[in-house]
């Protein structure tokens, strides 16, 4: 099937644009820090080494944190879980949203209306508030964060995919295939799904960025990844009180999260521009996801 390779070629095309290159390089740097970091950290990230908020020195190049742990080691160790959970929840959330959206578009009528009503109910919860609701009862667990983020992705993706699927299914070539007597399910997977590729790719990018925002925010509020684990969001909150003494424990995680999300967003923008060929395509998808526009411009 061409479908399985097309997404790679789309990524490659996006990566050749200027925006794509900038986004990819910037994101890649942070991913590299997160992936290689745990193996090159000079000290254990959860064990106190020296006095709290010690200034940078030869042994501790970025000083120490609120309980005297090496800031550099904690920064190096604190990214992989954030990225891993964000990636997993995005894949699950976008996958489930894709299925729901396709299902609603494919069945139509009452089923469609019912499914989309339920989607509306979940859209009424601000994602962070929904995650807090779950955490308040079940406690902070990594799996729960993963579920909460995936559940807040799915309705948004479902909405975009449904609108796009309805748009594609109204086109002539799909009509023609249907007239030939192809079963609806085959039409859905064989004709409509491949045409949703660019929409799904852009959604993946947007949702991944958003997952990072959400998980880092949860950790910052101390309901996400739990101490004593090293995590960028958590570090920022832990070391806030020592900002004037040793700012690095806050500054570096802030910079890494900012660079990561900006890089990802830039790359997603590049994908949207190359695949949808429209200047304002990502905004368009934002609007569809929030129910403002009825269909993404394909």
């Amino acid at each position, binding site marked *: 099937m061409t479908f399985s390779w097309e997404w790679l070629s789309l990524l490659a095309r996006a990566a050749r644009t200027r925006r794509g290159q900038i986004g990819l390089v910037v994101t890649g740097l942070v991913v590299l820090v997160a992936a290689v970091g745990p193996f090159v950290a000079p000290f254990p990230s959860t064990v106190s080494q020296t006095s709290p908020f010690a200034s940078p020195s030869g042994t501790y190049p970025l000083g120490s944190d609120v309980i005297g742990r090496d800031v550099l080691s904690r920064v190096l160790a604190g990214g992989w879980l954030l990225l891993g959970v964000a990636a997993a929840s995005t894949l699950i959330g976008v996958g489930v949203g894709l299925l729901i959206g396709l299902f609603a578009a494919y069945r139509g009528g009452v089923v469609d209306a019912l499914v989309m*009503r*339920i989607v*509306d*109910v*979940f859209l*009424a*919860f*601000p*994602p*962070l*508030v929904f995650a*807090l*609701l*779950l*955490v*308040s*009862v*079940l*406690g902070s667990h990594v799996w729960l964060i993963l579920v909460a983020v995936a559940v807040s992705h799915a309705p948004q993706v479902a909405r975009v995919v449904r609108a796009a699927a309805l748009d594609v299914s109204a086109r002539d070539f799909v009509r023609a295939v249907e007239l030939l007597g192809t079963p609806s399910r085959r039409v859905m997977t064989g004709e409509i799904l491949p045409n949703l590729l660019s929409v799904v790719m852009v959604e993946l990018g947007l949702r991944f*960025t958003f997952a*990072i*925002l959400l998980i*880092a*925010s949860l950790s*910052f*509020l*101390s*309901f996400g990844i739990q101490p004593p684990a090293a995590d960028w*969001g958590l570090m*920022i909150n832990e070391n*806030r009180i020592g*900002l*004037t003494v040793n*700012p690095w424990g*806050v*500054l570096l995680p*802030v910079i890494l*999260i*900012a660079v990561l*999300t*900006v890089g*990802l*967003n*830039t790359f997603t*923008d590049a994908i949207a521009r190359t695949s949808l060929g429209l*200047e*304002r395509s990502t*905004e368009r998808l*934002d*609007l569809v996801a*929030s*129910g*403002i526009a009825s269909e993404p411009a394909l």
Partner: protein
Amino acid sequence: MNAAVAVPSRAARLRAFERQHPVLRLVAVRVLTGVVTLWLVSVVVFAATQALPGNAAYAVLGRSATPARLHAYERLLHLNRPLIDQYGSWIGGVLGGHFGTSLANNESVSALIGPRVVNSAVLVALSGVISVLIAVTLGILTAAKRDTWFDHSASVVALAVIALPEFVVALALVILFAVLVLHALPAVSAIPPGSYPWQNLNELILPVATLVIVIGPYTFRITRGAMIDALESDHVEMARLKGLSSRRILLVHAFPSALPAVIQVIGLSLLYLAGGIVVVEYVFDYPGLGAALVDAVANRDIPTIQFLVLTLATFYVVVNIATDVIALLASPRRRAAS
């Protein structure tokens, strides 16, 4: 025969009414679905907090749960009654204005939250107004000066800022203006109890600035896009051919076409604020609903959590309906189409 023609059926009269009053019809439909959505939201909130296995009493007491304390809490939360009963008495109380008693300090939830509603409303309203003024102006100007360096730099900045989490923006502002670089503004915004936020303007600057930076780029990007579409339309071309001044073309001919999209994105920004205030209020210790939610979650104060989540979801649904209706009113073409 004649009678049948003279007295149209009820359905026909309804259709005629719908044709004549499309806005009223939309409002009615939207309000009805909104009420249903809110009812379902209340079921989800209730299910998550009180009906999940490993019940709320355990959640509250954690490892310190002894059988005696568990029973006390179960009675307090009415956990020993059937679920339907529990839901009924909870939702009945909410509709009657009784939101229960906070588990954290035994005060009534409404007394605890009431003053905070004002604080959050001021924060949201101020951030909304300021961000709209700045972003819409910038959107119109960049669309008018499309593909100049001014347009490009505004777009690049917006693309970068749009992806930043609230706490990153907030801490960057704290570092720049309160703690490390300048010492001009307070790093925490503790509005003293009994005083209003507008009596403490200094404390409002950083939280409002954070929210403006977080939501402004959306409004800017959509306004710019809608204005470019409008400027490329035939009737603006016509106005240009008539030799009208460019300011007049921008504001009188192009902006009205862009208005529905602008209204929609303003609504979207307000919706975003419903979640955005949580982090921002926590960072600045601002005594609003968001900070209250973080406290309630930390204390596992179930009645307060239920009330706050329901309030934020209600805000969400109401803003959604209001946005749709106002955008429809601002859009003559759509009004005619529906």
